[in-house]
């Protein structure tokens, strides 16, 4: 009973947050004089487009009516039109999403695997030089601005690794002959590695510190002592008894750090000219294409809310005591 209550509560909270985010989005973009999302201040737009926008967004009506129109449009997946290309924003978002998601996923995966490995080893060898190095390394990466780390990687490591530092694919690929599936996949991966590595390293700093302190806490528990007294190997003690319990806080924290990852992705994509959501945001800011900026912001916010909910539910699945 309690469990159901908890799940319902978390879902309702997520729905509430989505609503707050949508409202905030509306208020922010319509509070400017001359209405940022409408095309009225757009110099390059045609007269018909301006008229169309005026009707579409209900700009002659009250703000309240406009808000209702905005909600209804959004419910239908209509996020307005770009002021630059006059295309529907929805179709502009699709390609960058497909580009960003694998890169962010690769970076996060790297951070999780590497963070867990180093964090666990540091906690197990606490007080040693290994531990100190991990601790300071983690703190160092945690303090680095992602865009700066990106520049440093381009400057020192990219040439040495021989990896491309900008774009998402080799422009010469497929001009002379038809490239195979594997060739295309390798090319994509090569372009993804450096931005993902940058993002992964910055986030890794945070993860290794969290895993380490969660592990230190767990390794101090009585059942760890018991498992050692039973004569279990170090491996079994650390991974089966310690790590599984330390994973709980880590799940939450990984989900919660998604906001930070997304923020980092924006500047990292800019550094590497990687045409994902981040670069789309940078271009939208540059060209004052507010409907695109608005939609991209909403998309990022919704994904963070979703992952937070997911973390809450996962946590409950692994540790039902959370409701108490």
């Amino acid at each position, binding site marked *: 009973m309690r469990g159901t209550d908890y799940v319902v509560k978390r879902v309702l*909270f997520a729905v*509430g*947050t989505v609503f*707050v*985010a949508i409202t*905030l989005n509306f208020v*922010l*973009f319509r509070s*400017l004089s001359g209405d*940022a999302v409408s095309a009225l201040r757009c110099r390059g737009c045609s007269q018909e487009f301006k008229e169309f926008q005026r009707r579409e967004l209900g700009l002659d009506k009250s703000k309240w009516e406009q808000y209702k129109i905005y909600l209804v449009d959004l419910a239908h997946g209509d996020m307005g039109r770009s002021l630059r290309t006059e295309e529907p924003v929805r179709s502009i978002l699709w390609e960058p999403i497909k580009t960003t998601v694998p890169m962010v996923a690769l970076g996060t995966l790297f951070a999780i695997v590497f963070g867990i490995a180093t964090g666990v080893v540091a906690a197990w060898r*606490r*007080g040693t030089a290994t531990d100190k190095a991990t601790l300071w390394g*983690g*703190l*160092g990466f*945690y*303090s*680095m*601005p992602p*865009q*700066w*780390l990106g*520049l440093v990687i381009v*400057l*020192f490591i990219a040439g040495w690794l021989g990896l491309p530092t900008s774009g998402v694919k080799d422009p010469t690929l497929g001009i002379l002959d038809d490239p195979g599936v594997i060739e295309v996949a390798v090319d994509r991966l090569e372009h993804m590695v450096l931005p993902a590595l940058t993002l992964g390293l910055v986030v890794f700093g*945070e993860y290794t*510190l*969290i895993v*380490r*302190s*969660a592990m*230190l*806490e767990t390794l*101090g528990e009585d059942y760890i002592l018991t498992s050692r007294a039973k004569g279990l190997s170090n491996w079994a003690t650390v991974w089966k008894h310690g790590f599984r319990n330390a994973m709980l*806080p880590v799940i*939450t*924290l990984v989900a*919660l750090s*998604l*906001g*930070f990852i*997304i*923020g*980092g992705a*924006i*500047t990292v994509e*800019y550094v590497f000219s990687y045409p994902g959501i981040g670069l789309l*945001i*940078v271009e939208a*800011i*540059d060209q004052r294409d*507010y409907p695109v*900026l*608005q939609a991209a*912001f909403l998309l*990022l*916010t919704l994904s*963070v*809310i979703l992952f*937070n909910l997911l973390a809450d539910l996962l946590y409950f699945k692994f540790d039902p005591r959370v409701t108490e």
Partner: protein
Amino acid sequence: MSPVQPGVSTPEAPPPTPSLAFRALASPVLRNKTAMVAVGVLGFFVFLAVAGPLLIEGDPKAQVGAVFEPPSWEFPLGTDGGGASMVSMLVAGARVSLLIGFAAAAISALIGGTVGIVSGFFGGRTDVALMRVTDYFLVIPDVPLMIVIAALFGRSTWNIIVIIGIIYWTFTARLLRAQTKSVRERVYVQRARALGARNSRLVVRHVLPQVTPLLIANTVLLIAYAIFAETFITFLGLGDPSSISWGRLIENAFTDDAIINNAWWAVIPPGICVMLVVLACTIIGQTLEEALNPRLRTGHLSVRRFRVLPRSVQPEHQKP
């Protein structure tokens, strides 16, 4: 491990006098060697920021050498893409970056402190309403929100300060609420209330002195976040075009093609400065918070900004 029960384990301590409050802040730092080094580093950069105009003559942006001149005796860190001395630019950048860091942290502390104390002290519906709002804002990703607001509302240093300030208050509010709630239940506060003290007096005389050290500790952490956030906003071209900050120096290195010119001296130093200040503030802030609020040790699930400094850094006798 058991969290300290609010109001139970705490003896009837009288509200600390200012000197006691200062000691509460100074002693955990003085006991910790790492924290002392961090104070030194932060102090060095504050000195640069304050004394900057005395240390460098003339306009730091002035072209004094060739474009991307490598480090030499004349220019210890070389010159940037505009031919200005990197050392002068870094010193000038310290001023703006630290101003943004301190001012934005102060705004956050003011908003978060007020919300937290009001929420924790009055409880009931006020508490529920304020915390609901806080929770919503905790989930909305801060960096994209800052970028959007900065893109919409103009590019000046003060705008950036306000934008960062109004976004980072949520964590402070949560922390201060918890602390205020525990102080409110302490015996001497209850006695003062029984003696007829009004709410305003209770807050100002009894709650505020008890929660101020924690608020200061949290503000030190916020400085790190604010300086970090500034580099994000400025890097996307949303900074004040006329002012020099560390974030701007990183942006300049990128837009002026320092990479193609292989000018590592224009890229590395601003990032190192940001790193050092962020590290210093993180270490000082967490050393203070941990000493002041033992419950934080079990509270790493409740906050978004988790603890990155592990517990082994603490003195042995403080371990639970």
